[in-house]
């Protein structure tokens, strides 16, 4: 369902005119209110009035996560603290978190975009939404929460953890929509199976899963095990939180990016030059309406491509392909670029291979080694050594064929790969230790 037909199905010409007006306003705002941007723009010799067309976006400076860290904690805020009503922060894998601020209008926009997102997933007022994204500094929990309330649905604010208790609530409260990370959705399926829960007979109809890259193979697995339609959602706290883009239930073919609020570009992560539509590169986003935390050309590190063709659902806003990984997750194994999501695609194509895997990268002398750990379950297990060796060889061969890199495949006992109740840790890189 389309919540806001005016913006979501706008003719592209009108949309681009709107984007330009909003971009010009953002240029003015950051130049006058954020010393960091004034300095950067002065260094490049750019003034807000130089933005005359959407192509002039190229004149503006990029922003990285490091820039936000360098201005810790409040240096990037474009509104005084008395207008700021909330602060979220993204997890800092390296020390300090990166704080993000919201005015009350920012929260209003976010709630509206999350309501659009849930509507695109087919949710409506009569739905009960089981929200298992973490509540707190992380934007996932509260983002979904406010969107669900804006939509008028019933929200169960479960947050993360306490898996068995969540399964009890899924059975007793009868939610129709599940929102969590895809790895947690699978974990729910696994624990539920152990508890003898028949998921396809629960009332769950649709799941909106995000906050980590996942593949179409994983979608099929989740849909079969939980008996629902699984949709991909994208967002990041620096930009706003969840609700930047989402798949529609009609097509499940690309994530509709709310272009009236975010201006996307795809660039080559190495050269930063723009890439034509359809090519995979790093997603760069300029916020068009943020008051407290506007960002120019923020480098998301997420790899995707854009498609501006209208969708069968009627939306004219562009679509992102499913994430192909992160430019900073890229492993270089003996000179070959490898993304964990590529390994996942290969594994999911092999019947019986469980969706839980982990990649261990190590170095022996000057050589990088990539070990792929895969859990053995009853469908792949055999009492004969040669059968299990054939399985490891098959996985090795398919990875080699697809990625041109030789890996070691290690079969491990079920449950030996740690389960996540948040984001799954797919890669353990021992080279940095």
């Amino acid at each position, binding site marked *: 369902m389309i919540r806001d037909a005016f913006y979501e199905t706008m003719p592209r010409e009108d949309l681009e005119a709107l984007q330009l007006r909003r971009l010009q306003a953002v240029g003015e705002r950051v130049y006058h209110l954020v010393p960091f941007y004034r300095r950067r723009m002065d260094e490049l010799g750019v003034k807000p009035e130089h933005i005359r067309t959407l192509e002039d976006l190229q004149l503006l400076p990029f922003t990285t996560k490091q820039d936000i860290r360098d201005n810790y904690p409040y240096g990037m805020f474009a509104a005084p603290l008395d207008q700021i009503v909330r602060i979220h922060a993204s997890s800092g894998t390296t020390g300090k978190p990166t704080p993000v601020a919201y005015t009350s209008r920012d929260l209003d926009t976010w709630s509206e975009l999350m309501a659009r997102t849930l509507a695109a997933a087919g949710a409506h007022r009569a739905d009960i939404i089981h929200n298992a994204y973490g509540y707190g500094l992380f934007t996932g929990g509260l983002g979904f929460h406010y969107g669900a309330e804006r939509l008028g649905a019933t929200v169960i604010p479960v947050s993360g953890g306490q898996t068995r208790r969540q399964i009890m609530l899924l059975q007793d409260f009868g939610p129709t929509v599940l929102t969590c990370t895809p790895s947690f959705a699978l974990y729910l399926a696994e624990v539920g199976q152990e508890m003898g829960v028949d998921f396809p007979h629960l009332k769950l109809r649709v799941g909106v899963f995000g906050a980590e890259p996942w593949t179409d193979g994983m979608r099929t697995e989740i849909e079969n095990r939980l008996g629902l339609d699984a949709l991909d959602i994208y967002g990041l706290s620096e930009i706003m939180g969840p609700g930047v883009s989402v798949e529609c239930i009609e097509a499940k073919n690309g994530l509709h990016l709310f272009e009236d609020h975010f201006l996307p570009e795809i660039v080559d992560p190495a050269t930063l030059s723009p890439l034509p539509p359809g090519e995979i590169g790093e997603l760069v986003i300029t916020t068009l309406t943020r008051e407290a935390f506007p960002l120019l050309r923020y480098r998301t590190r997420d790899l995707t491509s854009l498609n501006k063709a209208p969708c069968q659902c009627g939306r004219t806003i562009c679509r992102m392909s499913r994430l192909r990984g992160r430019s900073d997750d890229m492993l270089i194994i003996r000179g070959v670029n490898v993304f964990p999501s590529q390994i996942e695609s290969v594994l999911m194509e092999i019947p019986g291979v469980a969706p839980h895997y982990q990649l261990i990268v190590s170095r022996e002398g000057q050589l990088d080694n990539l070990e792929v750990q895969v859990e053995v379950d009853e469908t792949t*297990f*055999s*009492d*004969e*050594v040669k059968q299990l060796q054939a399985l490891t060889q098959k996985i090795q061969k398919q990875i080699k064929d697809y990625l041109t890199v030789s890996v070691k495949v290690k079969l*491990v*006992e079920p449950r*030996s790969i740690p389960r996540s109740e948040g984001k799954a840790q797919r890669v353990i890189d021992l080279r940095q230790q």
Partner: protein
Amino acid sequence: MKVEQISVFLENKAGRLAEVTRVLGEAGINIRALSLADTTDFGILRLIVDQYDRAREVLKQKGFTVGKTEVVAVEVPDRPGGLALVLQALAAAGINVEYMYAFVQHSGKNAVIIFRFDNLEDAINLLQKQGIHIYTGEEVYRL
């Protein structure tokens, strides 16, 4: 004529075998025969126990990957050339032995050997024709 064997996937790390035997022991299950096939990364433990269903249940509960295979328990004369006699008969008929292992205890004067064949029915027919004694499942679990 067939005996049910449990197989368990084990990672090659300290304490896994001890854990299987502890779980079975605590459930009051007696191991009648076993063999362990090992590779650098993993092992496959094969077991004949006195309570097949219960063993499978407790191991699965503890999160082990458990498989089920049908094998044949053959009585072999406990004297020089006893096993050779059985194997020669199988070889002559072109029946391949996937693996085999000996029973923990003797039954009277003779040894009991567990065989895993690709083609179970053919192997049983052949051995019976040769007058070689095959134990039933019930006999084996009670041995």
